[in-house]
């Protein structure tokens, strides 16, 4: 009984069971707000004398006004007022006069385009002509409706406009005696059920197709390039729901909703939106420009591929695998090589994510992509190969050559995304090889580079994974040099740029934790390091285990530590993680030291040395050499040890972290001291100097335990040299530190 006249409710847009969203090709229509914009334009073109600054401001205002969502008259006037005070009254007056019934119906004067305006801008002329066209298409009842809504639009704002001394306004108020009465009632309801009505009020009216398209494009761009500037997820979803309510056929909104819900890691809505989008797209693909059947099948293939990526994103590898297989099958049937190529690149990505070897797949992918002239996929494949190669110890020159080769192509084709990745990758590779200066330089290069992408909406893209990686490296490099203030600045920036819920946030979280852990360990505050271990394990289990072993070792729980290290060793062998393997070996060697098994540590260290040399891991090589030297020192061959230390010292001082530098110098001093027992005085003097240097580094790091050791050694040296005052000073410093620190029980000699 509710719906009378249901037979009248037919949909003129529907043919052959398919609803066409826009049969007339009208993307825009006349609304009261549009008329207000037109009034502004009109005033701008007719008022001749205007301050240049005002005019410039107004000109800048026009575009957002015309493309944005409909505003209320109040908002509109306020915006104009901010730009140009004089304009407001003129616009107001003109607008009010458009309410004149006679004029409105007869002459439609506001839509009449003053001559200079058309000529002065192509874009604005187009807009005005569109408006005129849309207006001319209106039927009588629609024009009447427009008039009514115009009236309402004005009434809603102010008594001001109606108070303007025009006789037609009286006419309208006579005509509609209930208007005020209604207003009052509405106020009543507002007080009655405020919340509901408010929610009704905030959701703006429908956007025209143009406005909606503009809105979607802008938000999608912001989501891609700088998420922080986009609307908050909840608000964006509200807007999208609003658009979809008014036009369910607007498929792009579903896609944006998919992106938006991925942002908040909502698998249900994102799957739903993705599938809905493709269900809709399949239709438009069928009747679109791309020849019928081809376009339809194509969107099917990409639908499945997108589903696969979605599952990949959420870590559902099995599901992703199934979807990918399906995509590959369909693409094969349709002989679509481009799609197959995309599938292949996802396939090796998936294999990598699952942690299995995918070199062969990747190589195939690169070859075929090159064959089909798909530069993007090809160099993506090459980059992936480089990454795998670096992990498996490919020669450095080959890797860097490959990267340079692709770089040339990237610049030629202006693939800015790949350039960024390539730079970040070079940073990582240099870092892995232990060349901190090169790494720093590459990271700076990336951060200072101007993107090749056009800058839209005054937002430059800087939220890709490449940026995150480079920034993390920078943070770690600075932490190594003890510049913790800088580190905290970088972290702050990262937190802001990649909020914790986003995809790449894990990178900086892990980095941050590692830095804090290292700091706590260096300071000897093991109780602070402990919670970090748990947090690291949550992000990366291998790393977490390693840190746990380190912590246990520092706490003298050797049995547990060695168990964990054995476990880690097995894991690393399985996953072929060379860096970690070497680290584990070093840590095990240190454990052997603790039990005075210096001779047993040797084979381990030699193995580690061979591995690190084979993979060009310079920093680890020097670390291993230092370990070896220490072992030799302990085994009573200080001559050999000193030679070793002096060999490495140069590279450590050039590339190593502060603590490494200090440790190397300390070791060198101890070797010298050991030698001095037999030989001449000068060895002792050099040892004092070396110790002084080491003390500088340690004091920069505020590493008290090591400082205590140094003071002890210094005191001993001065004692033997006979500098009593120096000796006393050093022993006092030692005593102070020793009182401050809890006695570790460990003698000074037993660790590196």
């Amino acid at each position: 009984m509710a719906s009378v006249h249901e037979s009248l409710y037919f949909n003129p847009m529907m043919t052959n069971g398919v609803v066409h969203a826009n049969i007339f090709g009208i993307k825009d229509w006349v609304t009261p707000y549009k008329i207000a914009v037109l009034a502004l334009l009109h005033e701008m073109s007719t008022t001749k004398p205007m301050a240049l600054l005002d005019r410039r401001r107004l000109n800048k205002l026009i575009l957002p006004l015309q493309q944005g969502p409909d505003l209320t008259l109040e908002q509109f006037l306020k915006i104009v007022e901010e730009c140009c005070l004089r304009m407001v009254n003129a616009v107001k007056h003109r607008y009010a006069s458009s309410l004149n019934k006679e004029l409105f119906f007869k002459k439609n004067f506001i839509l009449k385009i003053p001559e200079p305006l058309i000529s002065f801008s192509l874009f604005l002329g187009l807009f005005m002509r569109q408006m005129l066209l849309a207006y001319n298409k209106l039927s009588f009842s629609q024009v009447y409706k427009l008039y009514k809504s115009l009236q309402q639009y004005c009434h809603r704002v102010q008594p001001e406009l109606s108070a303007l001394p025009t006789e037609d306004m009286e006419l309208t108020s006579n005509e509609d005696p209930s208007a005020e009465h209604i207003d009052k009632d509405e106020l009543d309801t507002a007080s009655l059920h405020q919340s509901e009505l408010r929610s009704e009020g905030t959701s703006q009216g429908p956007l025209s197709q143009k406005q909606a398209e503009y809105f979607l494009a802008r938000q999608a761009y912001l989501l891609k390039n700088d998420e922080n500037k986009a609307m908050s997820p909840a608000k964006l979803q509200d807007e999208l729901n609003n658009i979809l309510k008014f036009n369910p056929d607007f498929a792009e909104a579903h896609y944006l909703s998919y992106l938006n819900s991925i942002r908040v890691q909502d698998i249900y809505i994102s799957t739903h939106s993705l599938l809905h989008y493709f269900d809709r797209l399949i239709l438009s693909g069928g009747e679109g420009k791309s020849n019928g059947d081809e376009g339809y099948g194509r969107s099917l293939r990409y639908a499945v591929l997108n589903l696969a990526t979605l599952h990949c994103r959420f870590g559902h590898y099995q599901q992703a695998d199934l979807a990918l297989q399906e995509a590959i099958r369909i693409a094969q049937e349709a002989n679509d090589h481009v799609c197959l190529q995309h599938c292949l690149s996802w396939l090796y990505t998936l294999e990598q994510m699952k942690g299995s070897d995918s070199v062969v797949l990747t190589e195939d992918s690169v070859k075929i992509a090159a064959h089909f002239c798909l530069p993007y996929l090809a160099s993506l494949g090459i980059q992936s190969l480089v990454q795998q190669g670096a992990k498996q110890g490919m020669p450095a020159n080959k890797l860097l050559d490959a990267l340079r080769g692709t770089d040339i192509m990237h610049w030629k084709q202006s693939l800015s995304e790949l350039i960024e990745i390539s730079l970040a990758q070079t940073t990582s590779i240099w870092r892995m090889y232990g060349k901190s200066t090169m790494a720093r330089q590459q990271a700076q290069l990336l951060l200072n580079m101007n993107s090749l992408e056009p800058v839209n909406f005054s937002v430059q893209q800087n939220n890709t994974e490449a940026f995150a990686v480079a920034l993390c490296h920078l943070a770690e490099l600075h932490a190594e040099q003890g510049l913790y203030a800088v580190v905290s600045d970088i972290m702050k920036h990262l937190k802001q740029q990649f909020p914790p819920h986003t995809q790449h946030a894990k990178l900086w979280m892990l980095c941050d934790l590692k830095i804090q852990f290292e700091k706590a360990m260096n300071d000897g505050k093991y109780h602070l390091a402990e919670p970090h271990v748990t947090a690291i394990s949550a992000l990366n289990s291998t790393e977490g285990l390693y840190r746990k072993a380190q912590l246990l070792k520092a706490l003298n729980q050797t049995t547990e530590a060695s168990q964990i290290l054995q476990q880690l060793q097995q894991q690393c062998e399985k996953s072929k993680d060379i860096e970690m393997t070497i680290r584990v070996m070093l840590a095990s060697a240190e454990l052997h030291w603790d039990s005075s098994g210096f001779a047993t540590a040797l084979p381990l260290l030699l193995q580690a040395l061979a591995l690190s040399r084979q993979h060009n891991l310079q920093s680890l090589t020097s670390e291993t050499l230092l370990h070896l030297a220490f072992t030799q020192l302990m085994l009573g061959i200080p001559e050999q040890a000193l030679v070793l230390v002096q060999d490495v010292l140069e590279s450590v001082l050039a590339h190593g972290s502060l603590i490494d530098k200090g440790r190397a110098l300390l070791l060198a001093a101890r070797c010298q001291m050991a030698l001095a027992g037999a030989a001449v005085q000068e060895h002792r003097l050099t040892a004092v100097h070396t110790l002084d240097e080491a003390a500088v580094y340690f004091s920069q790091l505020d590493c008290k335990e090591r400082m205590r050791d140094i003071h002890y050694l210094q005191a001993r040296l001065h004692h033997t040299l006979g500098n009593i005052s120096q000796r006393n000073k050093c022993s006092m410093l030692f005593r102070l530190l020793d009182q401050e620190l809890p006695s570790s029980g460990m003698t000074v000699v037993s660790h590196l």
Partner: protein
Amino acid sequence: MAATRSSEFGDLVQIKKQLISITAQCKERGLVHSVKWASELAFSLDPLPLNEIPPAPELTEEDARDLDALCLAKSYFDLKEYDRAAYFLRGCRSQKAYFLYMYSRYLSGEKKKDDETVDSLGPLEKGQVRNEALRELRVELSKKHSAGELDGFALYLYGVVLRKLDLLKEAVEIFVAATHALPLHWGSWLELCNLITNIEMLKSLSLPECWVRDFFMAHMFTELQMIKEALQKYQSLMEAGFAKSTYIISQIAVAYHNIRDIDQALYLFNELREQDPFRIENMDTFSNLLYVRSMKPELSYLAHNLVEIDKYRVETCCVIGNYYSLRSQHEKAALYFQRALKLNPRCLGAWTLMGHEYMEMKNTSAAIQAYRHAIEVNKRDYRAWYGLGQTYEILKMPFYSLYYYRKAHQLRPNDSRMLVALGECYEKLSQQVEAKKCYWRAYSVGDVERMALLKLAKLHEQLNEFDDAAQCYIIYIQDIFSCGEQLEHAEVSTALRYLGQYYFKNKLYDEASLCAQRCCDYNDVSSSSAAHSQLRDANLSPFGKILILNPKQVM
């Protein structure tokens, strides 16, 4: 509980009197559908003697004053000149006049809304067209409501207004109040029915104790797909004396349709058509049943009949669509479903049926669109989800269709067809473990097509799980033979052959020969010949030990 109910119903005379008086009241207020429901029910009861017929309610002072205006307005109202009716009623004080005044304002708004949809300013504004009168009505009604001046009818109208404004929670409250104030008005119950989404919500409402409540509960159970409870309710209502009511018969028939008890439903619909030959309501459901059973002549007869009655009804169009579909003229069928949609775009069944037609025509993209529309109208339409799944399965995208089947399964957790479809998809994706689970579950919830066990058995066979496979085949055969009627299941012979071979392998020759003999009854050539040879071997084997020692020769 049941006893008290039946005693309530015992006084059928009282109920009849109530029905007559409510019919008169609704008629005065132009609530045509409620009038129809009440009078249909009244018609099914025995006629009253003259002295029992309730007198017209006495007029109050106010009623008398408004009588002329009301008369005039009602005549305008009947002629659909709602604004005019409202104008002449604006000063009236009586409850009746007030309701008619508000109701005609509401209907006028609705009418204008529908008219405006045709010439709105732009395509995007289409969804925005709304009944402008609603907010004013709400304001006025809420004032009166808080003053406690609304009677049952006005409360009902207030609820409708709230529902149209999407204030569903408030609407439910008001409708519950309306049923308390006037339990006999079916309209309020029906509106309430549309707003209740699950059983918990239903249980949480406090509804008036009245015989109408039983009708409501039965209707509600049908809506919530709790068919067993619904049938029980309707049965008790029939026993209580409403056996002749066409309303109840049709509802029971629809319920049987929902649980796919086709024979019962067909029987009831035939009875319904005998009692009420010019009925158009529910006939689309009837035609669905005829379609499923491929009863061409009956469907054709029904279609002819309905066209004669009224060819511009949604139901008629659906029936004709089904008719053409059965005759494999799918283009024409789609055309008629489109016509149905033009008559009522919110007609859910037609969208889904049109999707099916496009599927038949291999126009998958149009089918997807049609199903999507159906889902947009009602997210809980499991047939549309299922249809989407099928479409993608036809496009050879089993993984993609999993999502849709899962949705359908969520909506009908106890429907074996979705489970079987899910199982098939998993099987195609070589996810045998999941597939097995699906098939087994499909069997446990009561398999309508009796295919789940067979598929499960074959799956076990593939995975070389012979014992499980044999077990499944045994249950399958027991199932087939226990249901009595001999269906033309070609698969029975396959099952028997497998069982024969299985027993043979396990040296249970008696069982093997029994199975082989049964298998020979079927005229499926390959399996019978296999059975013959096996029978020979089975008979031979006790004597020829070589065969047993070397089973490879046998196989």
